[in-house]
């Protein structure tokens, strides 16, 4: 799967869960840049991404990403 494709799909999941149509993610986006992306919502996003890509993250991975780019890399490593 193309990295770009993954980012697009992750963006769509964020838009759905955060209910924010105008959200545009880039590799450097962090939780601080996105309204409502708190630690609780994070887990909800993670579960939705697991479902969307049919993958499973380990408990450590979930807390390891510093930005969207690292999340996308992690997804790419599993596809």
């Amino acid at each position, binding site marked *: 799967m193309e990295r770009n494709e993954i980012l697009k799909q992750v963006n769509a999941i964020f838009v759905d*869960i955060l*209910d924010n149509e105008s959200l545009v993610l880039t590799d450097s986006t962090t939780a601080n840049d996105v309204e409502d992306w708190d*630690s609780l919502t994070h887990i*909800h996003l*993670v*579960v*939705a991404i697991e479902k969307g890509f049919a993958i499973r993250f380990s408990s450590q991975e*979930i807390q390891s990403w510093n930005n969207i780019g690292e999340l996308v890399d992690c997804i790419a490593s599993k596809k």
Partner: protein
Amino acid sequence: MKTFSQLKKNLKQDFTGLKTIRVALLGDTATQFLVQALRATGYEAGYDLQIWEADFNQIERQVFDPSSELFEFNPELVILFQSSHKLLAKYNKSKPEHYQMLADNRLEEINSIVSAINGQLNAKIIYYNYSEINDSVFGNYANKLELSFPFQLYKLNYELVRLATQVHNFYICDLSSIQNQLGKSVSFQTSVYINTEMVLSIDVLPFVAKQTVDIIAAMNGQSKKCVILDLDNTVWGGVIGDDGLENIQIGSLGIGKAFTEFQYWIKKLKNRGIILAVCSKNTESVAKEPFEKHPDMVLRLDDIAVFMANWENKADNIRQIQSILNIGFDSMVFLDDNPFERNIVRENIPGITVPELPADPADYLEYLYTLNLFETISYSNEDTERTKLYQVEAQRSVLQQKFTNEDEFLESLNMLSLVEPFNKFNTPRVAQLSQRSNQFNLRTIRYTESDIALISNSDNFYTFAFTLEDKFGDNGLICVIVLKAKDKETAFIETWLMSCRVLKRGMEQFTLNTIANFAEEKGFKQLEGEYIPTAKNEMVKAHYANLGFENSGDKWILNLSNFKNNKCYINKK
């Protein structure tokens, strides 16, 4: 079932106009998502759940401190969620010689929590039972060993059920059963647990919230009262008109087994007090044949309160069933294998529940189990008689057609009513009637059995429970009055409710005669009534005006010095 993400969108909806209920949620794990799921699911059921969430792991602090935020919030409902994971953690930390005390200790703790709540609040309590965790320390031998964790957990769940039978306002939400239905791998997700301290997975949240809101809805008088059944390929396999009596599929062979088991389920619902009606596109005599003659039929004609088999549109037939039974469409469930008929009924009958039965009849029951359609918060022996009552009602309407004069008809019924104050025998039925009656209910006050005990013991209240029987049969307890002494002169009618199945018999007049005479004897000068409108009680809008009360602001007054008994054909038993 909507997913948690879909549900969450409800939180942005406008909740104004919905019935508000103040709910306190106390848990020993993180419950933020559960709060969101509950509020969002409440919205779908028409409730604005105003949820106060205790800080994490604060159950004891909140309930044992009389000046806590919990008591300040003064909820109508308290939800308690003590998780299996925390129970296991407690077990793990205890000394081995204390293992076998786990369930007893926890039960004692729950008992004191419940007493503390009941000491300060007049609230109902919902308690989540314990979803099963097998720590696999003793293998299957755990079932033979009292000190094992699984043994203690099973014991605790059993003791909770017993506690619920003893404490009127204590209700169990069966989390264990939800986990059994969906599987532990769906209900519990380790990464969510590790990272957030939440023991419910994102996927299980809508199910837990749904069952909780089902209980809340039942507490507020919303429940299903009637199942309307299609016949061909719903109650039996095949088409009776084409295949004939010998060839329909039912019994112990092949797919027949699925229909037989489905019928047993329906029969249990009937025995529980759910009214059964048939709505089938068939010639009536042909449709009735299996009920009369087929040896493998579980359902018989005397199980069915109203039998509609003809070639008319099903929506029209269901409207007619509704007019005979006199219950709301929102308390009806329609089961039909045919998607076309389901859509017609769904589109034309607002409020009716029409489950999307799976294409394979073998799946009907498992699917219906998951819907939890028949939640209730009470059960009385009278429930089991309900079908007969409605069948008798059908006979009465045949007799009525023969009389042109209504007085003659009413007189011919030889009606008798037993009038008693609330007592321990009629309390369950009084509570149930107060929870179920929506239409003929002037102020729609719901009473639990413990509320009724309080009222019965108070000097300020006078209570009346009325039965009605006639030559066709006994309707049982059908009318409830609660009078409250407002001052020396005025008796206020706090509650006047009646079952709609005894409308147009003069029961209203008989009731008024009874309470007016009683109030006069007690030295009151006037009766005061009030009508509080709801979405469903329009039918009694003019109730007090019709009975000769005079309007006074938002109240209705009947002066007892001028009162003369109204004509009616009901005698005191």
